[in-house]
């Protein structure tokens, strides 16, 4: 049991990292990684919302009818995001100004709604909270990793206090500005996804993921064959399919 709980927490970090493996929440991942403090605040805000919304949605999972499932989830998530917004505006106004509109955009961040649909709906409160924590930490990790690369190499500084970047001696003179801009962002993002893919499950093995095809964002594209546990991609399967058409 304990192992199970720990595995729920840990899988969000690398194995099912929401940004780099599930490819969810890319908008803040690209927009808020130009500086380290941005990434940290974004990650923490999203984690808080994730844990709270997962827990609440899991607690209410038997009470919310299927037909109004999505509106209810959105209302709950939006409520938590607004609370976080107000608290930041009051007590950490610098961070609030820095995050700007992306704080409000957490509401429509796919990670949160996705985890609510895929996990919180079907599991207990404690498990859902752990899953939220794990996913949030994975999000934070991915963002910080991207921000470190983009800011250190792109601007030659590290910003840990909003408004006061710390200049790194050699790198700040020989920085690569494109990394802090949009094209560089995508570049870093792509490279990180590739790295995580490499250290993840080996090539050729069917990727066993916990969610079924119905929760997968790429289900429409792959034709529901790639991830199912019972079907393995082999040449035979493909032939059979071609013949049956």
């Amino acid at each position, binding site marked *: 049991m304990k192992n199970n709980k720990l595995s729920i927490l840990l899988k969000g970090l690398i194995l099912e990292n929401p940004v780099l493996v599930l490819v969810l929440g890319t908008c803040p991942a690209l927009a808020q990684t130009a500086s380290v403090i941005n990434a940290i605040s974004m990650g923490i805000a999203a984690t808080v919302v994730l844990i709270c919304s997962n827990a609440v949605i899991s607690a*209410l999972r038997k*009470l*919310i*009818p299927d*037909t*109004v499932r999505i*509106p*209810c989830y959105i*209302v*709950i998530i*939006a*409520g938590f995001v*607004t*609370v976080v917004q*107000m*608290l930041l*505006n*009051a*007590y950490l*106004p610098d961070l609030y100004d820095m995050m700007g509109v992306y704080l409000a955009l957490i509401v429509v961040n796919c990670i949160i709604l996705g985890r609510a649909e895929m996990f919180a709906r079907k599991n207990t409160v404690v498990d859902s909270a752990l899953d939220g924590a794990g996913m949030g930490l994975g999000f934070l990790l991915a963002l910080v990793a991207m921000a470190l690369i983009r800011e250190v190499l792109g601007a030659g500084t590290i910003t840990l206090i909003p408004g006061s970047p710390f200049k790194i001696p050699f790198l700040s003179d020989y920085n690569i500005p494109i990394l802090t801009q949009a094209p560089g962002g995508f570049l870093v993002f792509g490279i990180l996804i590739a790295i995580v893919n490499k250290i993840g499950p080996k090539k050729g093995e069917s990727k066993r993921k916990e969610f079924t095809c119905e929760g997968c964002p790429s289900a429409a594209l792959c034709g529901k064959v790639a991830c199912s546990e019972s079907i393995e991609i082999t040449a035979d399967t493909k032939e059979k399919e071609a013949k049956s058409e």
Partner: protein
Amino acid sequence: MTKKNIMPVAVLVIICVVVAALLGGVNMLTKDKIAENALKKEQASLIEVMPGATLFEEIEAPAGAPETVKTVYRETSGLGYVLVMATRTSYSNADMAISVGISNGEVVGAKITNYAESKDIGKTTYPDRYIGTTLDDYSEVDTVSGATVSSTAFRAAIGDALETEKLLSSTVTVYVTMPSYMSGGETLPKNDTELAALLAQLVPDATFTETALPETADSTLKKIYSVSSGGYVAYIVVPGAYVPVATEALVYVDTNGDIKNINLLQWVVGHGVEPGDFAEGFIGNDIYHIDDVELVSQATYTALDFKNAVTMALGELTALMDIEEKVWLDLVDEKIPNSGEIVKLDLPSDAPSTLKALYKDTTGRGTVAHIVVPGAYVPVATEALVYFDNFGTIRGIDLRKWIVGHGVEPGDFAQGFIGKKAETVKEVELVTAATVTAEDFRDAVENAFPYVPVAFPIWRVVGILSISLAAAAYVAYEIIYRKRRALK
């Protein structure tokens, strides 16, 4: 509407309500802090040019300030002023916005806040060179090359700012010790010789005789002079509400009871009292129009106190000249459009004391009652003119004096009297926090009705009779006509 259909909607609604309540709670906890942060942010740019400042308030630019001055902020703890200037350079149509912080005639901070042309150039260098300069030595600061128009424009703006600050500080005489007249002593800020000179300025070609102050005079009314050409001049000194500086004025009231001229001798800049529009707004008003004098939107106690002092002085002078009734007649004449001569009616001896006078419009349009109700809680009376038509219905009401917050006010309450007759006036709504004042007023109006002459509604009777006769004739005609037709 099966259970299947209601359940989802109900659940969604409940969730929305709970979330909304949660948000409302958090909002209540944080909104003050958020407002505070917003104000700090707004003022952050001002604090940048005045180190050590906490809070600023916007004040009016003083009269005579150069055109480049856009906004003036006063630091609330008295550190100084921040002036936001806008200046044009000859090669750009965009304004260069500059914030200058000045404390005691010395520049403590300067910043270019908006300049499109040479961006980043001189953003930190040449503004800082002006720190520590005063009106005398600012022009000696080395401009970057002397040839750039922007740095020259900047220097001109600094000069303008320093001049404006001088204007702001010089009109305030700050007393180190509290002057004795503030604490009820006899010494006045201006002595007799000074006053004589100022009086001559106010009313040319006249001599002035000091008159004894009436017993009812307010403490702000210091001296009264009777003018040889008619009228009186009052010397008013109002102690400052926020700073130990008094507002002083000479007010000249003519024989019609109107303020003919006013001379502000001393005022505190930025507290709503100033010699321009504000002071001139008093001219032409008599005791029954003085309430119309407008205070600026951010009226301060200083301005209110001053207006009250002038009002009380005007009242004393009007009483002294014994022209109160004349002034009332003028008011009645003004309020009833196209009226003929206004004639005062004699009141029988049993008329109530609240009915001060009745005036009749000789063109026969109606009667005006002057109602005065003594205050129930404070020694201030409520006064109104009530217009009755010839059939005993109230057609209009003019509240001339009322106490704010005691239930009598010119809006809904007063308008509620219109259209009422003797029987229905008791139905006028008193507001929920109705006071004795409001009830007394309503009773006073009710008690006035029996004394208002009512004409016999002859034309009304004739009208009703003729219509009914016409209707009866028509009905009769129909009946006869039908009978005739039926017979055929």
